Every structure is written in structure tokens, then in C-alpha cells.
């Protein structure tokens, strides 16, 4: 045998479609969990690619899920990426060999124009007619074959919630002719007249294909009457957010105890199995106690992400953006900033990355600058620890007092974010007008498979952080806390004599005015890598400070016994602003392409945190004494 083997390279496919067309659900069905999430070279637009095998001959495909786009003439970075990728203009990406254009069958008037635009590019294309099961009962009608003839490209039905449509889709895809590689396409944005002409063509085709749009669901219209009601709407939004935060606290209690018990059990087993000494201490005090004290917050983070994904999938988020546009506008932000800011409640990093959907640069910068003020899930462990230790578990009216305090902290973050945005938009980031033009898709039930995949993605990211950066820092911290060893005849706990003790005492001078002891000061240092590390660090510091064998003693009673309430409240206030999160600063640097904004961000957050903690500590000390 000689000559090259038959092409083993997987064929490159791209999924294209307008936002809310059901593209991601199809992507998930085709690729399952075999997905790779990264960024496009040089920008922070999320690049999702998956691999799968064809149903008949087992050919291999690589499927790229391009960002949703209404048009090839972009108004956002996402849309520009989609256009450039299709045109083969994107550095590091070759143009796809086949395009699957996903259209929402119940909304073809909005979807079909993009199909015509893509068809004119000349890429081999297939149209996936994404159909809701209910469409037919609501009066949907379409002659698929006629549509196919009119468009001149294959049209395949895929029912959103049933498997099987994909098979037909792939069979048709295999039948598409292979075209010779094209020269880079000459492409020019269409004129107003051309857009109108295409729109008329869309309507002609739909008429010819006997298209009957399903009526909008009456019940859902009534829901919208409430959700978008000028008074009921904001009330529902506030209630919804409040419910989410209560749920994060109440539902997570049992799984958290389980994780905690598991970690303690593992620590005890290891402690008993290994001979006493350095390795024992490293594994039990450093690795297990450190990583475990962060891992315990996994249930809360998962619950929060679950709600964000449900709100996103159900179609509620754009309505919230509509409701909040005026409020956001009053501090100079766009309603679109709501989605990045909501994501920042999970983590500022994806939140800052999500700001790319804000077309205006200065708006985007202002949103980035306040994103870290949204209480990210990494702060939750810190809040949870202090609340558990200092706030009594009792009810205030219908509410749980601990949940109420947590809610207050979230509100404090939001209010300061608004104040900072207001200040920024009136000074450094004053901008010209920018439009709001937002599609409000019909509500739909979140697809369990999409939810599971989304949660799985977050879980992986969180565990990778715990497993890599956080674990590494825990080990560094354990080292700092264990060396040098206490001198002979020392009376205090060993950690006082270590490097960590020296750093903590040096920092104590800075933080004493706001009520932090050296253990807290010390824990803030590794917290620089990730805020939740501070909890693990406190775990390590206190478990090592403990004399004797009571390493298993949990952190909560420990700090409840040693900190004053004023100190605890001061630390809570500090964490509302908490400048220390290197990943956020690195992402800001990458997004803004300069050190100016990350430095500005770190500076202003530190100043606000210090001032807030100072005031809290002084006031609390005065009131409580």
C-alpha cells in the first residue's frame, strides 16, 4: 500500500442560528458531553466545539457551535466572530466545510432571513427546522418540501425534545456535495434596500410554502402580562431573586453536611493510617482540611448555577433585562449589563466574559469594573462561615435570619455596584447613547439535558480550580504555616513561629484598625488567588494552631469562640468589596488589553473594602460595647 491514507480528519461542521433558536440544545444532543469549551484566539468569546460519529458509516465530525447571530452585519463581538469564522477570516480557524443553520420553526419570519444571507455565501448548508412538539396543536403549518425547493438547500425537521431528528439531519448532511475550497469570500454588508428585498423574499417563500405561524400560547401571554407588568414585574423579579438566595442556603444544608462529614472522615482515616510526622500533617492539615473546606460549598454553588441556568433557559433573563433597563440606565448602564452582572453572582470571570454582548465599549468597561461587586459564589463560603458562626439560626417573621443577613450582603454589593457605575459613567467612562433592542423569546421549559450539561460544565470548572490552583495554594500555605518549626520549649501554637505567623503579624498592623487578627490577615493572602481560599486558609491556620489532637474540631465553633462580633461584621463588610481575586484581574487585563483597568479595579476595591470594614468595625464596636 502506498499513498496517503484516506482522509481521517473529521469533517468541520458549524452550527449557526439566531439567538434563542434552539441551537445549543441541538449542539448538546449531537455531541453529548464530548464538548470542549475554550475561547477564540485573542478574544474572550466562548468557543464550543464537540465531536461525534455519523449514524451510518461512523464518519467523524467536529461541530463548532458559533455564537448566535441575527445577521452577518454584526452589532456585537459575538456576531462578528460568527461572520468572520464563516468567511474564513478568523485567525486560527479554518472556515467550516458544512454549515447547519438552525431555525425555530415557530418563528420563521425572524429566522429565515439569516438562512438566505448564509445561502448567498455559498457554503454547503443544511437547514435544521427546530420544532416544538406543541407547534402542530397550535395551528402550525408548513410544506417542508416546498420550503426546501424554494430555498434550494435541504431542510430537515428536528423535534426539540425527541431524539431521532438528528439521524435524518446527519444523513442529509452526508449527501451534500463537497465543494472545492473557496477563495476568501468577497462579502459586503447589505444596503437597506437589499435587507428589505431579502425580507420580502422571506415572506414570499413562507407564503409559497403555506407557512402558518402557530399562535402564541394564550396562557404564556397572560404570564407575560404579569411578568412584564410595570408594577407586578419588578415585584416578581425581586421575589424570584430572594427565593433563589433563600434556596441556596436552605437546600444546600443537607448535602453540605454530607460533604463535610465525608471530608472529616477521610481526614481521620488518613490521620490514623499514616505515621505521625510531616507527610501526615501535609495530607491531613494541608490537602484534606484545605481543599475540603472549599469543597463543602459545592452544593451551594451548584444550586445557584442551577437557578441561573433555569432562568437563562426559560427565556426569563431578557425580560429581566427589560424590567431593569431603566434602573440600570439611571446609573448609566444598559439593560444588557444585567446578564453579565447576574452571571457575576456565580463568578466574576464568566460575568466579565459575558460583557462582550454589550456593544458599547465604555458601557462594557463600566460593567466590567462593577462585576466584582456582585457577590460571587467564591464569597459565599466566607459569608456562610461567618454567618454560621455569628448569626443565630432563628426566624424573623417568615424568614430565616441567616438568609436575611446573606440577602443584605448581596444587596450591599448591588447598591455599591450601582454607586460605582454612577460615578464611573459620569467621569472616566462617560459615553454616548447606545440602543436597546432585545428579543423576548417565548417561555419554554428548560431542557433537563441542557441543565445537566451546563451544571456539569460548572462542576468541572469548580473542581479543576479546587484541584489545581486552590490545592497548590493550600500546600504553599501549609508550608508557610509549618516552617520554621516552633523552637524547643515554645508555649504557643507552632504556627506563631512560622513564616505564616510573621506575614500575618506584619499584615496585622495594616488590618488591626479594621479589627482583623493575624489569622484573618494571613488568610487574606492566599485569598488573593481565589476568594474562597480564605476559608480553607483559616481552616489550615486554625487547625494548625490547635494544640493537641483536635484537628477535627470544625472552624465554626473555633472562630465563634475567638472573634468578636465586630470583627466578624467587619470581615463581612470587607468581603462585600474584597479586591483579592487574581483570576478576575487577569481576565480584566485580557478583556481590556491593558493593565490600567485591572490596577484601577484592584485599587478602588481595596479602598472601598478598607473603608467599609473600618466603619463597620468602629460602629459595631461602639454599639456592642
Amino acid at each position, binding site marked *: 500500500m502506498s499513498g496517503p491514507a484516506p482522509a481521517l480528519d473529521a469533517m468541520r461542521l458549524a452550527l449557526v442560528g439566531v439567538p434563542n433558536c434552539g441551537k445549543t440544545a441541538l449542539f448538546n444532543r449531537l455531541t453529548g458531553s464530548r464538548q470542549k469549551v475554550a475561547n477564540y484566539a485573542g478574544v474572550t468569546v466562548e468557543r464550543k466545539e464537540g465531536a461525534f460519529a455519523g449514524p451510518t458509516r461512523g464518519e467523524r465530525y467536529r461541530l463548532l457551535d458559533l455564537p448566535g447571530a*441575527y*445577521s452577518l*452585519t454584526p*452589532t456585537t463581538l459575538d456576531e462578528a466572530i460568527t461572520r468572520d469564522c464563516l468567511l474564513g477570516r478568523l485567525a486560527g480557524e479554518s472556515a467550516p466545510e458544512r454549515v447547519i443553520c438552525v431555525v425555530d420553526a*415557530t*418563528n420563521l*419570519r*425572524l429566522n429565515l*432571513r439569516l438562512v438566505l444571507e448564509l445561502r448567498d455565501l455559498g457554503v454547503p448548508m443544511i437547514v435544521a427546522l427546530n420544532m416544538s412538539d406543541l407547534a402542530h396543536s397550535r395551528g402550525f403549518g408548513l410544506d417542508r418540501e416546498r420550503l426546501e425547493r424554494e430555498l434550494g438547500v435541504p431542510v430537515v425537521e428536528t423535534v426539540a425534545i425527541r431524539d431521532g431528528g438528528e439521524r435524518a439531519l446527519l444523513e442529509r448532511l452526508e449527501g451534500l456535495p463537497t465543494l472545492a475550497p473557496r477563495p476568501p469570500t468577497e462579502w459586503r454588508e447589505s444596503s*437597506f434596500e437589499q*435587507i*428589505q428585498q431579502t*425580507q*420580502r423574499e422571506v415572506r414570499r417563500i413562507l407564503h409559497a410554502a403555506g407557512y402558518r*405561524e*402557530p399562535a*402564541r400560547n394564550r396562557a404564556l401571554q397572560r404570564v*407575560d*402580562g404579569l411578568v*412584564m*407588568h*410595570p*408594577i407586578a414585574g419588578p415585584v416578581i423579579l425581586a421575589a424570584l431573586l430572594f427565593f433563589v438566595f433563600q434556596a441556596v442556603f436552605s437546600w444546600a444544608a443537607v448535602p453540605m453536611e454530607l460533604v463535610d462529614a465525608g471530608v472529616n472522615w477521610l481526614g481521620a482515616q488518613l490521620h490514623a493510617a499514616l505515621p505521625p510526622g510531616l507527610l501526615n500533617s501535609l495530607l491531613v492539615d494541608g490537602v484534606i482540611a484545605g481543599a475540603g473546606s472549599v469543597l463543602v460549598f459545592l452544593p451551594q454553588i451548584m444550586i445557584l448555577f442551577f437557578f441561573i441556568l433555569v432562568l437563562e433557559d426559560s427565556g426569563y433573563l*431578557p*425580560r429581566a*433585562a*427589560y*424590567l431593569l*433597563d*431603566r434602573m440600570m440606565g439611571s446609573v448609566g448602564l444598559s*439593560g444588557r449589563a444585567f446578564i453579565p452582572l447576574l452571571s457575576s453572582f456565580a463568578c466574576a470571570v464568566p460575568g466579565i466574559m459575558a460583557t462582550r454582548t454589550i456593544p458599547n465599549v465604555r458601557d462594557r468597561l463600566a460593567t466590567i469594573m462593577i462585576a466584582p461587586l456582585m457577590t460571587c459564589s467564591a464569597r459565599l463560603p466566607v459569608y456562610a462561615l461567618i454567618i454560621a458562626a455569628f448569626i443565630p439560626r432563628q426566624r424573623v417573621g417568615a424568614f430565616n435570619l441567616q438568609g436575611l443577613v446573606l440577602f443584605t450582603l448581596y444587596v450591599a454589593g448591588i447598591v455599591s455596584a450601582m454607586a460605582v457605575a454612577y460615578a464611573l459613567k459620569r467621569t472616566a467612562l462617560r459615553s*454616548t*447613547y447606545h*440602543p*436597546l*433592542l*432585545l*428579543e*423576548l*423569546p*417565548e417561555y419554554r421549559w428548560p431542557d433537563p439535558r441542557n441543565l445537566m450539561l451546563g451544571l456539569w460544565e460548572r462542576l468541572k470548572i469548580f473542581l479543576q480550580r479546587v484541584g489545581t490552583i486552590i490545592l497548590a495554594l493550600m500546600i504553599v500555605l501549609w508550608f508557610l504555616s509549618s516552617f520554621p518549626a516552633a523552637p524547643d520549649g515554645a508555649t504557643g501554637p507552632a504556627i506563631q513561629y512560622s513564616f505564616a505567623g510573621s506575614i500575618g503579624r506584619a499584615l496585622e498592623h495594616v488590618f488591626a484598625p479594621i479589627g482583623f487578627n493575624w489569622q484573618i490577615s494571613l488568610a487574606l493572602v492566599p485569598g488573593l488567588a481565589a476568594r474562597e481560599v480564605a476559608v480553607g486558609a483559616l481552616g489550615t491556620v486554625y487547625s494548625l494552631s490547635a494544640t493537641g489532637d483536635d484537628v477535627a474540631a470544625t472552624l465554626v465553633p473555633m472562630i465563634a469562640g475567638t472573634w468578636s462580633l465586630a470583627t466578624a461584621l467587619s470581615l463581612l463588610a470587607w468581603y462585600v468589596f474584597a479586591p483579592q481575586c487574581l483570576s478576575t484581574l487577569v481576565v480584566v487585563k485580557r478583556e481590556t488589553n491593558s493593565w490600567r483597568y485591572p490596577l484601577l479595579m484592584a485599587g478602588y476595591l481595596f479602598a472601598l473594602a478598607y473603608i467599609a470594614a473600618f466603619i463597620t468595625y468602629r460602629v459595631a464596636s461602639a454599639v456592642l460595647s
Partner: protein
Amino acid sequence: MPPVSLSTLRKGARGTVADVRDDAQTLGDEAQSTVSRRLLELGFIPGEAFEVIAEIWPGGDPMAVRLGNTLFALRRREAGAVLVSVEGG
């Protein structure tokens, strides 16, 4: 009845789109016609039926408009580019 701007309408108003003006006129040059272009791309084209279904209180801005079968949220400034014929007047 001569066409009026969508931005002048209140909740409950319905009719058909008459035209989209270049937003260089309504929003100034900095908008570079992006709003008008997107309005056209989203289907604000002559003859399309619309209804104003909600507005934010107070001030009525932004507003939610059903166009054909699709719901859009937009501010009155963007709506200013859309000329409509109101049903029933």
C-alpha cells in the same frame, strides 16, 4: 391617517409598520444606521402587524412590542425610527 412614530404610542396601540427611517436622522451620526439596519433585519418592515404590549412605569420607557409573532423590548429612542399606521386611530 398619516404614519406616526412608534415612540409616541402607549400600551394597547396596534397597527402596521409603515417605514423605518435611517437612525442617522433620529439618533445622530454616531449610531451609524446600526439601529435602523437591525430593526429591518428583525422584521420591522412595511406591512408587518404590531402591538404595544407593555411599558415600564413610570415614563413608559422601555416598551415591549409584539411584531408578528415575536416580542421585542426597545427604548422609545429606538422606536423613534419606526413609522407606523395605527389601527382604529
